[in-house]
């Protein structure tokens, strides 16, 4: 019997990243823009998605992939009711979507007909940050009742995103939320991050978010 040391030096998330890369190629070959929405439970992911569908579904063909840890279809049902195809992925207790789950979700969608796919990740500020899904844009929703310290407590999720939505701004008069402290944390983690303060309830600020999505579509089409 001999013992020996075998060098490896591989990133542990590499397997997921490779699947994510294949997903990206598949999306690109169909000219689809895919957006991964992450947030804590209750921050307003489904509300934002529904508002986005209302604003854009007459112009673009959209679909939604819903990730949930439990076999419930509450969110998918709401999306379907708005007239847009939705795929429900039950993560079987896992706290995040990974690239393999995303891949299985895509198989159930008519990719050749779509312009935009929105992915609603599992409500969680930790685990989704570690799993690349192959989406073009990762978006985080922070809602003001969660508190202004979240960038400091959950730095990783702030670092990987391309846009930040500050939701429930209609509650600001009733809540202690130091926006300067919040923004300083975000700035350290993700300088000059596109940020959209809005309220899904009142509709304030939504149009800037919608324009951002349309800009992403146009820059991709121009390529």
């Amino acid at each position, binding site marked *: 019997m001999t*013992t020996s*040391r*075998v060098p*490896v030096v*591989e990133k*542990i998330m590499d397997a997921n990243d490779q699947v994510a890369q294949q997903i990206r190629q598949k999306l690109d070959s169909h000219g689809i823009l895919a957006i991964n929405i992450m947030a804590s439970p209750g921050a307003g992911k489904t509300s934002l998605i529904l508002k986005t569908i209302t604003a854009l579904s007459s112009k673009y063909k959209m679909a939604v992939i819903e990730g949930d840890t439990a076999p419930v279809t509450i969110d998918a049902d709401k999306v379907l009711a708005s007239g847009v195809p939705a795929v429900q992925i039950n993560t079987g207790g896992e706290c995040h979507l990974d690239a393999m789950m995303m891949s299985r979700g895509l198989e159930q969608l008519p990719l050749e007909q779509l312009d935009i796919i929105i992915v609603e990740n599992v409500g969680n500020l*930790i685990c989704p940050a570690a799993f690349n899904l192959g989406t073009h844009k990762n978006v985080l929703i922070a809602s003001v009742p969660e508190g202004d310290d979240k960038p*400091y407590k959950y730095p990783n999720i702030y670092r990987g995103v391309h846009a930040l939505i500050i939701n429930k701004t209609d509650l600001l008069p009733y809540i202690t939320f130091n926006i300067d402290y919040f923004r300083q*944390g975000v700035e*350290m983690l993700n300088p000059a991050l596109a940020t959209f303060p809005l309220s899904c309830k009142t509709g304030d600020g939504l149009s800037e978010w919608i324009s951002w999505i349309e800009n992403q579509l146009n820059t991709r089409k121009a390529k």
Partner: protein
Amino acid sequence: MHELSVTENILSLVRQYAQNANARKVTDIYLVIGRLAGIIDDSVQFYWDILCKDTLCEGSQLHFRHVPATMLCQDCGNQYTLEKELTPCTVCGSPKVTVITGDEFMLESIEIER
């Protein structure tokens, strides 16, 4: 929280390298974990012991090398280590900082018996 899935990833990488090296048994696994990677040693160890049962890794030891979170200030060039939570530059107070180390999450090497 996602340590179960990452531990599964570690096991599949280890098995792949062990099989390629014709290992009879894997005795030690050397991992590198940055402070910002958000991975908890104890949880990885917990799942490892369960997942390894009846594999060539059963009874193997995990070794963790930790990499501190080092930041670089874009304004004054100061490099500093994050001791606790995220802080602006410790010299000039600028929030314009970038992470230099701390994101690592790698399998560095394994020790095997043939």
